């Protein structure tokens, strides 16, 4: 184990956004000669960086700077147009909590769905079911459908499943944005545990306080380009000092 956990080289990604979405034949027939016009949006432009094993790595930047796109490429959800991503280690398969939750089903089924999607086996889930529910403090609501859960309950359930997953590298997109104070405290405890276990974490957040508290190094994105890359305090100074006044572009597609 000597190489970087994640190595990103000259990554480019552009989205072609049609000006008007044409998805039915009728629209094609109604305007047969009108060419669909596209706007090319460069979500990522020549992005290179590397993350060392055991590092807590932050990705920051204003809305629409390409953070989520970058994370989705790291996770293998989007394909890059150019450039390469190399990952050494078991990547957590999720970037958001509660993927695949179905609101018509109860907690038991949803633990099975979400846990399976995240890579847990049926046996793991059976063994750990009580722990998951206990940690989420949802014992009384196990047989309730998820549509009757509050958003806090949903988040607790999603979180307790996610921490059961095995990985070397964890990708997290704005997990702190939705939780309340006590949930954040739980997250922080987990982050400390992850650091202690020297797991690699790539962390997208707008919450600069937690970025500066946990991240060893940070990459700052601006209009899809790297505007800063290095130790957290330096890049944060750069971000807060230089870029805050710059115009903020529209949020790109998901």
């Amino acid at each position, binding site marked *: 184990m*000597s190489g970087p956990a994640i190595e990103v080289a000259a990554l480019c990604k552009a989205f072609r956004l049609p000006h008007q979405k044409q998805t039915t034949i*009728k629209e094609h027939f109604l305007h047969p000669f009108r060419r669909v016009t596209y706007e090319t949006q460069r979500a990522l432009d020549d992005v290179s960086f590397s993350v060392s094993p055991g590092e807590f790595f932050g990705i920051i930047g204003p809305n629409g700077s390409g953070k989520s796109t970058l994370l989705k490429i790291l996770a293998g959800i989007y394909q890059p147009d150019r450039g390469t991503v190399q990952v050494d280690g078991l990547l957590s398969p999720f970037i958001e909590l509660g993927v695949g939750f179905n609101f018509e*089903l109860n907690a038991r089924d949803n633990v099975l*769905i979400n846990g399976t999607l995240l890579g847990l*086996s049926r046996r793991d889930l059976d063994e750990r079911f009580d722990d998951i529910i206990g940690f989420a403090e949802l014992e009384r609501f196990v047989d309730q459908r998820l549509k009757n859960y509050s958003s806090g309950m949903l988040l607790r359930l999603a979180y307790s499943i996610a921490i059961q997953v095995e990985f070397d590298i964890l990708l997290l997109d704005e997990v702190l944005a939705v939780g309340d104070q006590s949930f954040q405290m739980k997250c922080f405890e987990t982050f400390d545990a992850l650091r202690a276990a020297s797991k690699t974490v790539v962390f997208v957040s707008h919450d600069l306080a937690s970025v500066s508290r946990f991240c060893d190094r940070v990459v700052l994105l601006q209009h899809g380009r790297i505007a800063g890359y290095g130790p957290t305090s330096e890049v944060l100074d750069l971000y807060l000092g230089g870029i805050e006044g710059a115009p903020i572009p529209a949020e790109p597609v998901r």
Partner: protein
Amino acid sequence: MATPAPAESGAHRALWRRFRHNLRILHVLAAMDFKLKYAGSALGYVWSVVKPLALFTMLYLVFGRIFDLRTISAYYPLSLLIGIVLFTFFAEATSLGMASVVERAELIRKLSFPRLVIPTSRTVGVAITFAVNVSVIAAFIAWNEIRPNWNWLLLAPLFVELFLFTLGVTLILATLFVRLRDVGQIWELFSQLLFYATPIIYPIGFLPPWARNIAFLSPFTQVLQDVRAIVLYQDLPENRITAADVFEGYGGRLIPIGIAAVVFVVGVVVFRRAAPSFAERV
């Protein structure tokens, strides 16, 4: 750096691990599909049996009684039921599978796993319903006092062929559906057309020879007639015409089987080629 040999076995293990993970996703998605289909309904799974039976009763009353098709053969009701159950599988699997990728947009945008799992799990889910319906056919078979024989083992590969053909069609449709939602409307009409173009409510013998040649190009017709010929071996010979009869010899059966195989392979290739961009399109 480890020596090459352990590294290789590590890669194998990772591959195996990923494969099992994908199988588990497939299983849980199919099981939940099946569960959700009847969520909130009082009769639940019973509906998956009641629906084809109701369709059967309706068609039997109209075509069997009023148009008197039942006088052709004592096996007409069972023949009709087999046709309805097989077609229900095909129609339901293709129409539900077509929309599956778009319906699972949330998963596709947030999770990296082979997209093939999504339509496949849908098809498996519908196949579970099909298996339940086969038990109804079995009850009819017992009622008609038809004795099973060793030939019935051939039903298994025929069902596999039907499954793979259906999956191939589904994959093509699902790929198109991501780009063009009209495919949903077109396919709905087309599968109705297919229902009447296929000898389901009328015996194959009703078709003139040239039309039989066309009908047996469809792997569905081939599977249907093979299943009927195997189960209803006491039926009239003209009701047991198979692709082998029409295309002369057992080699002739390879024509629709070949078409099924091509459709499956094309489906997988087309789908896999389009899959990397699904996250941006759905």
